[in-house]
């Protein structure tokens, strides 16, 4: 492979990773927008989404990939709602530290529950490796084509939902001002519920795509939470399109960055970008939202 197509391939891989980070970041930023807190357990929605698919594809269900997707996404949506009902709703008016520690505890619980059931080892869905597509000297496997297609699908769906539907409008109203939304007669409970379902499903879709392309392990949530967070910071917290853009940038930076630093530090790149942004724009997230 000549060097130009090597760089192009690296950039393409970065874009693919970026699509997945964007899905994570959009879910994270959505909950921040509506409820004004960082869901530290968002990484666990990513991880459980991937494991739910693993569950339905293995014994005793043995469903094929396409059939297992629906129950896996539905269950992750339920998990998101269950998180809200059991932990975050009782703490809706609690102070931020309390909320944050509770979310952290929830994340520890869910991560270790997965390890309890499936063990700590790295797993795959055991699908046959299919021949990829090749064009212009670049290669693209079937899961990678799925990443691009599904991300475009999800982003379109989110756009339609948020900017073309009444439910989306009420969610945006909530994100602007919860109390004002409530006294304007918006069904805030319904909007919050919808936000959790969407956030969890986006997390699950991203987690499943990531697991299809690479593998799944109980640790996959934490590391991706940090990347999703870096992506939301780049785009401005609470801003959906910013999260999309931020995710793509993080993915690109990580993969192109490996050309310059040891691959052992690949996961550190997102963090370094985050620190640079903070130093350059220190007050990027003091509460004013750009949307």
């Amino acid at each position, binding site marked *: 492979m000549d060097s130009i197509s090597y760089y192009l391939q690296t950039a393409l891989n970065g874009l693919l990773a970026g699509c997945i980070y964007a899905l994570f970041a959009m879910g994270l930023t959505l909950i921040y927008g509506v409820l004004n*807190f*960082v869901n*530290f357990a968002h990484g666990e929605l990513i991880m459980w989404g991937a494991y739910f698919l693993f569950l339905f594809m293995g014994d005793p269900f043995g469903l094929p990939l396409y059939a297992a997707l629906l129950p896996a996404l539905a269950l992750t949506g339920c998990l998101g709602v269950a998180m809200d009902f059991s*932990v975050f709703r*009782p*703490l809706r008016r*609690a*102070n*931020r*530290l*309390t*909320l*944050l*520690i*509770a979310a*952290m*505890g*929830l*994340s*520890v*619980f*869910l*991560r*270790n*529950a997965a*390890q*309890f059931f499936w*063990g*700590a080892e790295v797993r795959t869905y055991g699908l046959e490796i299919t021949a990829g597509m090749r064009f212009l000297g670049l290669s693209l496997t079937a899961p990678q084509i799925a990443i691009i297609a599904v991300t475009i699908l999800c982003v379109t769906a989110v756009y339609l939902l948020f900017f073309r539907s009444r439910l989306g409008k009420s969610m945006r109203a909530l994100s602007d001002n919860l109390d004002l939304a409530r006294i304007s007669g918006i069904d805030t409970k319904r909007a919050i519920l919808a936000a959790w379902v969407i956030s969890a499903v986006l997390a699950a879709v991203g987690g499943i795509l990531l697991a299809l392309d690479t593998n799944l392990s109980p640790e996959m949530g*934490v*590391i991706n*939470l*940090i990347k999703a*967070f*870096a992506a939301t*910071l780049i785009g401005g*917290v609470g801003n959906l399109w910013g999260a999309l853009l931020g995710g793509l940038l993080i993915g690109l930076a990580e993969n192109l960055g490996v050309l310059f630093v*040891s691959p*052992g*530090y690949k*996961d*550190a790149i*997102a*963090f370094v970008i*985050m*620190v640079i942004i*903070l*130093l350059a724009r*220190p*007050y990027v*997230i*003091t*509460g004013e939202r750009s949307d």
Partner: protein
Amino acid sequence: MDLLLHLAIVIAIYAVFALSLNVEIGYTGLFNFGHVAFFAIGAYTSALLTLAGAPFGLGLAAGLAAAGLCGYLLSIPALKLQGDYFGIATLGFGEILRMVVNNEVWLTKGPMGLPGIPRPELFGLHFDTLPAYLALSVGMALATFAVLAFIVLSPFGRALKAVRDDETAAEILGKNAFRFKIKSFVIGSVFAGLAGVLWAHYATFISPGDFTLTETILVLLIVVMGGKGTFHGPVVGAVVLIFFQESVRFLRLPPEWTRLLGPLQQMVFGLLLVVFMVFRPEGIVREKGGRRGD
């Protein structure tokens, strides 16, 4: 008997670790989720120096200094973040530090870890037996308790609480909140480094696997369950939780159970964090004058 001594030593070390986190979380309201990084910096600095032949006193001093310096360098960008974001930034730092320890094999031996860390010798005293090490770690814990109590009761400590309770009001009264937070973070980091030094010379073997998010969660749970923002809370929490964690380790269980025991114990820890936050956010020991839910 050895088991009891072991328990007491680990409790003393974790009491230091928890007291250091309490300065940040309890008294200043900084959500540090990467506290284990400073524990690791202290442990590795002292271990590397003493393995290279330096005396324990130098290792100890360098461990504290390195942890404090790293805390200072991290706090400048990170403290520009508000609450939750500071939490994630510190979480990220903890993960990255572990990556550094894993990758810089020339210095840290990477995942192989550092074996044979010497037991300390200070002012001609050898702390090479369990009772002697217990005396050392309890002495250090008492010193930590005293120093931190002194700091917290001083005007500086009251300013920290003022920053925690209402940053704007503190600013209006002429307190530079950012600087107070940096100082609090550095103090917390230094004492976390001390706990790390004590741990390294007790365990005599350290590897990156000792410094994961799990440790941060444990120490966070100790502070939160014990009672953040109180003197005794972290100590109470350390006694209860370390007793629970270490005694489970000594139960004679069939090997197929022990594989499940680790995650199960972590599940209990996670659940405890949630349950305490929902039902008793102030912890076992309640802060005097603190409002419920704070």
